[in-house]
């Protein structure tokens, strides 16, 4: 696994060839870095996102805010709808499968989506097992709330990780919590000795080889994005300053007053996340943000971040 790792370019030349290799899957995520991936529900929204400078779009039937409002079982989107979005834009198209629903993933791969999000925003299809992602040619991104969860997903073949946050709330507090937890986990490993790393692997419930790799490199072996509750340019810039390598925005754009302008503003704030003057400039006159939900008032059953094992 280490040999095919694109994030450690000082390693010797790999020998893997063909499609669906670790390097091709993880390398795809490397190309998205510094960018914004936007949830879209129609071809028209996908075009607005591409025009605003999105690096990819996430095709889904309902944005998380609507899934929350309408309730019921949230599933993979209609193939017709996904195809219409693939046809509408030239940037990569991602789509969501339910946690553990490997047949939804097979369908999405057959449709030609560029990345699958095995997502807690949809209703889980399996309460114990995630999809074995190494079985697929298409790469997967998975959510994580802490380092152990991230490494379990990577062991299953995830080629990209996003902090979960609490999708559909417009409230960045959970994304902050998860980004800080991931960062703290990585920093902690760097201070442990060889003996302690065995204990750390046990406590993290993660494979020992991945734990050692993180301890040595000081970063995840795959690209880390953030997601869940990002609604403003300043939210995006804050997540980048906390160590995210890019941003997913779900309901935050198309549930706001002026989606095209807000989308472009979040893209610019993500590139210039460390320049407050730029973030200030793009934050002006954006109109109404999405309304938002106070996460602490959400009952446990309505918290998506607790889905995934």
């Amino acid at each position: 696994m280490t040999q095919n790792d694109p994030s450690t370019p000082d390693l010797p030349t790999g020998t893997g060839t063909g499609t669906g290799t670790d390097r091709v899957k993880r390398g795809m995520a490397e190309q998205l870095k510094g960018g914004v991936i936007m949830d879209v529900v129609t071809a028209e929204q996908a075009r607005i996102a591409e025009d605003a400078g999105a690096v990819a779009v996430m095709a889904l039937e309902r944005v998380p805010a609507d899934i929350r409002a309408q309730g019921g079982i949230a599933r993979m989107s209609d193939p017709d709808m996904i195809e219409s979005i693939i046809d509408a834009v030239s940037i990569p198209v991602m789509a969501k499968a339910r946690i553990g629903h490997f047949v939804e993933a097979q369908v999405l791969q057959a449709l030609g989506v560029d990345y699958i999000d095995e997502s807690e925003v949809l209703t889980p299809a399996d309460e114990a097992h995630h999809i074995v992602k190494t079985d697929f040619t298409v790469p997967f991104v998975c959510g994580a709330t802490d380092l152990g969860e991230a490494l379990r997903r990577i062991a299953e073949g995830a080629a990209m990780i996003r902090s979960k946050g609490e999708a559909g709330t417009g409230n960045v507090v959970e994304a902050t919590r998860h980004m800080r937890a991931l960062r703290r986990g990585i920093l902690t490993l760097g201070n442990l000795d060889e003996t302690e790393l065995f204990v750390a692997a046990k406590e993290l419930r993660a494979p020992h080889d991945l734990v050692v790799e993180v301890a040595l490199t000081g970063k995840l072996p795959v690209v880390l994005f953030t997601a869940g509750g990002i609604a403003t340019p300043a939210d995006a810039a804050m997540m980048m300053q906390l160590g995210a390598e890019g941003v997913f925005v779900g309901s935050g754009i198309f549930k706001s007053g002026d989606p095209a302008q807000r989308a472009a503003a979040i893209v610019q704030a993500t590139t210039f996340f460390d320049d407050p003057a730029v973030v200030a400039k793009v934050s002006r006159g954006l109109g109404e943000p999405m309304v938002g939900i106070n996460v602490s008032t959400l009952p446990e059953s309505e918290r998506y971040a607790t889905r995934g094992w």
Partner: protein
Amino acid sequence: MTAPVIGVLALQGDVREHLVALRAGGAEAVTVRRPAELADVDGLVVPGGESTTMAKLADRFGLLGPLRDAVRGGLPAFGSCAGMIMLADRVLDAPADQQTVGGLDVVVRRNAFGRQVDSFETEVEVEGVPGGPVHAVFIRAPWVEEVGPGVEVLGRVVGGPADGKIVAVRQGRLVATSFHPELTGDSRVHAMFVGLVRAILARDLSSDGAGVGAGSEGRVSL
């Protein structure tokens, strides 16, 4: 000799990997996001990423004009994947309003190999890179469909459905690859570009730029 300073366009994409590969190739590597930062570099790398995003950000932040002026004015540049698209004069399968920096007299087809499930890695022989073929990673990659008279083909895909497609080119001070040498840990392609920048710096210093094209470095015409 002091190391040449090479900037990596850092609007979006795999900037970090290019910085690492350039340092391994003997350059001092810095990021470039603003026109003032562009003025301070001896060469430029346009990284892999999403070319539509990069072009829009360059336009919105007033960098597209300075980039075009710099490349037209002789700034050496290397582009991988999206970077190849950014350096191309003409692009197929792109949104109608997609802008590029240009400079390379080529027609590039975006996402030419297919979608992500078609992304692959293989070996490619690259002219000017010693030590055998380079391991080439193609990710939703473009290829070069047509080259103008001044463009040298450095590498082609061998075998498979895309057999013979042009995936590495050079025109004077501009180099581009469809694939991502920055993802492999092999810095030979970057070292070739750093060598090109060094040669141009030496030439420009000794002749104030007047001797372009008449070199003692063999076939390298700058």
